[in-house]
């Protein structure tokens, strides 16, 4: 019996060996391999999901990839594409935290092996402790949202889970899901259309409220939690789209009006300020890390869509007193849009209070639709700003958000095809040095991104997995019972 076992083992080994063809005498070429996604020279956190990649040329017989860590450890993958074992990958990246991984790619085509120049993947010494990402997936269409869904993705593996999808609330458009500084014990999202409303979930309990009043004219959206966890800053606006006849940018998104308010989720009171309820358009509020200020953008009212090119947003700041639930008396203009002929939108302060990241484009207040939207970074210690050339592309970059420790950020970019936004992550160190971003890893990246007919937007980190009872959401949405709000005197 033992003999039979040895024979079986031997046959198994032989079969295994015959399936694996080690590159023999490869022709070495002095150029980097063209891989998809472009992971050459990127910086990653330890224990991120494996950076699987394809060779750009699809007509290859196979590829062989060897990764060696500067602090030890190796990893080998062979097949149609580089597909790494998750546990082995985690072991290697953890072992090489603060070091680098040297990647050797050999490609077999027409029966011959070619070895490309090695490239590095840097493993940051800064950890990324969040569980994953949350984001909305939506068809990059026009005025019909279609099959929308809010999802979460474990960034250490390839697993994706639905948080709320169109199937449970058919015909509803929902967006702007926001957690409190990556903590999903506070969530808000806005649902539009019939039976619309604003969800406030605190510690697992859902509350659906109607934030529209006679004075505020629309339901709150583009939300942001106060760090204390009771206030939510929102914009109340009316969003519209127009469509270009040319072959470049497809859509111009604009707002007919927009104001900023704060909702006290304990009392359902709306806190208003005459400084934020003006004829100008105030939009995209965000609390500072200490909760003492609200950053937002403001533009002069224009006759949109005719004057869409005149929409130039300034980046502003107003004090907020969480004790009293009151706004300050003055507005600071940090960056003047009309004066610089730019538009500054979507300010997102890092949670350590060190940085302010925002979008800059030539016009408009909805950067994801602006092809020239780029990310910029302001040092809140010095007030100096710089363009994040390390992460920008000729296409739109927007919807950025910080990791819990503010050492990583995620953003959405249309760099690949100008239409389907995808998620990229990059690191930032104490000096503000930003690494080359990497596309959110997928098990089979080329197939996944080719077949993915959705665009990603509103990405955010989440420190733990989000728990939202979609059945309860359905009941509350279709019951159509909404708690009202009142204006705080």
């Amino acid at each position, binding site marked *: 019996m033992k003999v039979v076992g040895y024979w079986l083992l031997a046959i198994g080994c032989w079969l295994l060996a015959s399936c694996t063809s080690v590159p023999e005498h490869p022709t070495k070429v002095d150029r980097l391999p063209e891989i998809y996604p472009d992971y050459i020279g990127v910086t990653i956190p330890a224990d991120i999901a494996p950076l699987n990649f394809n060779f750009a040329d699809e007509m290859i017989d196979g590829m062989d990839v060897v990764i060696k860590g500067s602090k030890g450890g190796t990893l080998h993958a062979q097949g149609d594409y580089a597909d790494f074992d998750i546990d082995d990958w985690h072991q290697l990246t953890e072992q090489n935290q603060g070091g680098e991984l040297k990647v050797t790619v050999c490609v077999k085509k027409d029966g011959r092996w070619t070895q490309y120049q090695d490239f590095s993947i840097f493993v940051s010494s800064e950890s990324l402790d969040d569980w994953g990402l949350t984001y909305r997936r939506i*068809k990059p*269409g*026009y*005025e*019909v*949202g*279609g*099959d929308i869904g809010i999802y979460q993705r474990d960034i250490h593996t390839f697993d994706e889970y*639905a948080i*709320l*999808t*169109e*199937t*449970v609330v*058919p*015909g509803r458009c929902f967006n702007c899901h926001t957690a409190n500084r990556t903590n999903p014990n506070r969530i808000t999202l806005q649902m539009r259309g019939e039976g619309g409303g604003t969800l406030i979930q605190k510690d697992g309990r859902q509350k659906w409220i109607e934030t529209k009043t006679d004075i505020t004219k629309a339901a709150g959206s583009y939300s942001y939690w106060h760090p204390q966890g009771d206030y939510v800053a929102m914009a109340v606006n009316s969003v519209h789209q*127009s*469509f*270009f*006849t*040319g*072959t*470049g940018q*497809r859509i*111009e998104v604009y707002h007919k009006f927009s104001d900023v308010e704060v909702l006290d989720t304990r009392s359902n009171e709306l806190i208003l300020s005459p400084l934020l309820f003006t004829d100008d358009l105030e939009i995209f509020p965000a609390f500072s890390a200490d909760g003492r200020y609200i950053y937002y953008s403001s533009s002069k009212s224009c006759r949109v*869509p*005719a004057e*869409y090119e005149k929409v130039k947003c300034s980046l502003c700041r107003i004090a907020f007193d969480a004790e009293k639930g009151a706004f300050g008396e003055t507005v600071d203009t940090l960056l003047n849009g009309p004066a610089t002929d730019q538009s500054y939108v979507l300010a997102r302060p890092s949670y350590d209070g060190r940085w302010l990241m925002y979008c800059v484009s030539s016009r408009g207040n909805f950067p994801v639709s602006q092809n020239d939207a780029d990310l910029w970074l302001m040092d809140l210690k010095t007030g100096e700003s710089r363009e994040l050339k390390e992460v920008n592309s000729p296409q739109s970059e927007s919807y950025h958000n910080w990791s819990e420790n503010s050492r990583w950020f995620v953003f959405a970019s249309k760099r*690949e*095809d*100008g*239409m*389907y936004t995808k998620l990229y992550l990059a690191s930032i160190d104490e000096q503000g040095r930003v690494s080359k971003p990497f596309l959110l890893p997928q098990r089979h990246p080329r197939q996944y991104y*080719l*077949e993915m*007919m959705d665009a990603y937007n509103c990405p955010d980190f989440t420190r733990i997995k989000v728990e939202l009872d*979609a*059945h309860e959401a*359905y009941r509350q949405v*279709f019951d159509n019972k909404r708690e009202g709000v009142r204006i705080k005197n």
Partner: protein
Amino acid sequence: MNKVIGRYLNWGLSVLVGIGIFLFWYVAYPHALSYQEQYQLFLWTWDYFVERVSLPGGFVDWLGEFIVQFYYIEWLGTLLLALLFVALQRLTLRLLTHGNNPHVLFRTQGTVPMCLSLVPVALVLWLMGDINVLLSLPVAIVLALALACLRLSKRLSWVDFIILPIAYWLIGPVVWLYVIIRVIQLGWEHLWTAGWLVAVQLMVYAWLLPQWPLQQAMTGLNYYRIPLHYPQWSGYDKDMYELIRLDYLVRNERWDEIVKRAGKYQVKAPFWSNCVNLALSQKRLLADRMFDFYQSGADALIMPRTRDLTSMLPSAEAFWRLGMVNSAQRYMFDTQESILNGRKSGRCTKRIAECMIVNGHYQTAAKQLDLLKKSLFYRFWAKEAEAMMKDEATINAHPIYGKLRQLRYKDNFLYNYDEIDKMFGLLFMNNQENKMALDYFMAQMLLKGNLQGFQQYMGAVQQYGGYRQMPLGYQDVMHCIQMQGKVPGSPYAKYVQQMAERRAER
């Protein structure tokens, strides 16, 4: 002898059912099949199969879509549909006459059971008149009946404990039909299966369907195109099916037939006007005969954006032929996203890919083509288009894409539906060979009642329109202008009067 005659009669009836159903769809309602086919895109991939069968009722959903894809070739799709109905009739007959217990209704296959076996056929046929009923429902009914035909004796009734969860997962809540038949076959003591099925459904809802409402878990996720709605016993509404037929004829560019039908029967809806005007324009008859037909108003040429899966299709087809490529893409995209069960549309995806190719957006076009390449009937075209994208000169030389590149706007500005007449005018100014744009420009001014503008551009019609003499329709309008509308029998005067009456009614 009687047995032999009975057997021939028995099978003869089934053959008649098959022929009848085939003729019903193939001759009378081929457009209904085209309508169903255009709101799905069946992919021949393992992932697609897994995606479907990962939900209760997903297997019949997959099977239904599998059959519907063959509607692309009308005779083949109709044949499969006829066979499905024959199966329905045969299974019903079998259940009525071959029961394995004393509760069987009929001992022999006489005339009565044979007639009764036609009842489900008639009911399902009538039910399918509701355009949102998916083929998964008839398929589920057939499978439920087939399951009930399995010869399981009373002694083996416990097997239903295992069968029901599996059957529920494969065919969905229509499995209740099986439960009812089994209770009839085996008696009231078998009623426990009903309780068990409810329990199964509730467990599936609680544990496996976190993103679906209870109502759908109990009544079916994929029998009806509109979530949380149910089939109507509406049958084949004449006007609705006329509109569907016109869309089908537009899809197949059968312009003469549209004009011919329009002369016989009209539906007072913008959709109808859109189709007829598009057909007239393709025959270069718009200027001559437009007001001989019903015109719905300012939306008679192009519909404003409407959130449903049908209304914008003829407008999208008009945009495409005019050279308003971006608008064609937008209307097709929004149409596809309005399919409330979240399915893709082969027709829309193909047109979206074409728009992207014309606009030179090859990377996004490649995504659409990748999808189409996984289908059966769009695959060949997608491969050709993919090859074409590698050579810009081939696209420029293409009879349609190359022409559209010449016709589309050269300037970049914002589309404005309220000023669609000016947009047509600009399109014509952009390329004075674009005679369809000129016809639409003039027609839109007439629809809006802008007679001053119409007169102003009559010179352009004479110079660029390519007409040997002034079109009859324009002659009529000029006559109306001269006579201040007092022209008895004038089609345009009638239109103006109708518009005035409608405004007064509002």
